[in-house]
């Protein structure tokens, strides 16, 4: 095969796998930011918190990191619910969420990150899954399991989440709270309870994404920063509240970044990806898959 073509194909495939990781990171945000209107800028920090906890637990027990991250989700759900209670009490109730709420999550992000640095140090942590060294080869195309397994787990989790939102009563209530919370009140459903539940789910997704992240790459306390822009970019390009759009946007984002990195060097890839987002915001603020409000 022509080496350029092989490079392009490999770039696209590993971009799709990277997109799986982005989708996992962005799916939780798509719930909190897209559906609940809670601009949780600390979402990547929760992901890193999950990743580092998984790494520490892996070091102590040797259980597979992805299983550990699934085990962590209930704790993260509770954490998310608690944070939503605080957020609701101080900001949403007063109608101050715009600037003050944003600043609140900005502060929470710094507390998590610096807390991690003070507690376990600034060095990188990693967790080696049993399959991390294996690479499947399909002709010229490499499929490293280190990337493939987290991506598949992420897609499975997002699929389950989409099913939950579409089929179950609570899931439909979450989708409804995004559209009209007063109408929800008329159905005798407490919108605050629903939002608390949904915000917990979004943070639990962050724990899962953290588990996927720590399998893919070593993580330190500041790793979340590079993800802030990316996950918000993915969620906005995906049209906010649509999980399917979020996955497609994540895949597109991963491919654009990776192909740019393979052909022009990795230092250019953020500019191309974020340039795309700036253009999307300037031309089509509702995203590719969103409806005009």
């Amino acid at each position, binding site marked *: 095969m022509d080496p350029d073509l092989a490079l392009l194909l490999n770039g696209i495939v590993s971009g799709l796998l990277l997109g799986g990781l982005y989708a996992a990171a962005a799916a939780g945000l798509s719930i909190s930011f897209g559906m609940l209107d809670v601009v949780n800028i600390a979402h990547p920090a929760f992901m890193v918190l999950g990743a580092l906890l998984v790494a520490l637990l892996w070091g102590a027990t040797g259980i597979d990191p992805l299983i550990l991250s699934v085990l962590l989700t209930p704790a993260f759900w509770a954490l998310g619910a608690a944070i939503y209670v605080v957020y609701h009490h101080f900001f949403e109730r007063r109608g*101050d969420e*715009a600037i003050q709420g944003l600043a609140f999550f900005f502060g929470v992000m710094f507390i998590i990150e610096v807390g991690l640095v003070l507690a376990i140090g600034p060095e990188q942590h990693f967790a080696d899954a049993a399959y991390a060294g294996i690479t499947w080869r399909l002709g010229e195309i490499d499929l490293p399991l280190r990337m493939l397994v987290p991506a598949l787990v992420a897609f499975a989790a997002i699929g389950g989440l989409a099913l939950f939102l579409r089929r179950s009563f609570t899931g439909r209530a979450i989708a409804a709270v995004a559209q009209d919370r007063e109408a929800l009140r008329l159905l005798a459903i407490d919108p605050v309870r629903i939002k608390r539940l949904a915000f917990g789910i979004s943070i639990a997704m962050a724990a899962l994404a953290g588990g996927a992240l720590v399998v893919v790459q070593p993580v330190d306390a500041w790793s979340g920063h590079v993800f802030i*822009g990316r996950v918000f970019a993915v969620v906005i390009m995906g049209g906010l509240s649509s999980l399917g759009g979020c996955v497609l946007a994540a895949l597109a984002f991963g491919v654009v970044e990776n192909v740019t990195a393979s052909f022009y060097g990795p230092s250019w890839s953020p500019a191309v990806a974020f340039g795309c987002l700036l253009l999307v915001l300037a031309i089509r603020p509702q995203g590719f898959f969103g409806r005009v409000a």
Partner: protein
Amino acid sequence: MSDTTIPAMPTLPAPRRTGHPAFWLASAAVALVSILALRGIGSEYAYFAATFILQYVVLATAWNILGGYAGYVNFGAAAFFAAGAYTTVAIGKALGLSLLPCIGFAALVGGVLGLGTGILTLRLRGAYFAIATLCLSVVLQTIVVNWDYVGGSRGAYVIRPREVPWPFESYSGYLCAVMVVLAAAAVAIARSIEKSRLGLGLAALRDDEAAAEAAGVPTLRLKLIATTISGAMMAVAGAPLPLLGSYVEPNSAFGLSYAVNAIAMPLIGGTGSWAGPLIGAVLLASLQQAATVTISSAANLMIVGVVLVVFVCAAPHGIIGLFRRQK
């Protein structure tokens, strides 16, 4: 959205208003006294700490013009700050100019960048605007990392000139005096804007953009003016940075600590008035300097985070708001 700010407006004390010239004179006097006082202390560390704190006064005041008066949250403060710093590096290297002309160029670059951001993001509000500015920061950082002329990701060394301008005995003293003047000018500009028609228009579009537009406020033009002025002033805040540390590299110049501080300081002080960012910046930056010296540099970001969270929860209108309510 921010309906809660409207009832607070009539409590502004109308009588005893200081005019614009009087306020500018007062700021000049304060600047002069501060320079003389710092001269009196005369230690290199005092100069460094004062410059550090004052650069945040300029940055926070600049951020507040767009974020506080107009209600547009800019997460990209670090981008403008770094644009100023790198203007100094590039202009200093290309033309061999000294600090003062570089600050002028930085204002120009920051203003153009602010205007560009404004034009590109005119249709965005709230979180979208915030995220667009965050993107701008990433794009700009990537460009600087790939720009070899200013050192790329290796960073650039800037040698302080050997001869020091006349009345000063060391370059840090000169740098500090420049920063005092910049800070005083920034606060005076912010107050002039706040008390002028521009400030009233910005406040109107912050409270309800559609209503302001309907009432004949030229929201589009006001937003562009605000982004330009705010961008220019943030770049000015960053311009002396290379000379302060003799070295800049993209990761620290674009560091999130500038972005978080630029937001935290006005919010802690109170966003509605010129005094808010000033109080917030002095308080928070001194606290950080103290924490860096006595505990560790990781702890100072922790302090910013905790103070920010406590303040937005307990005192949503900042320190100024606390005093207003007691009256």
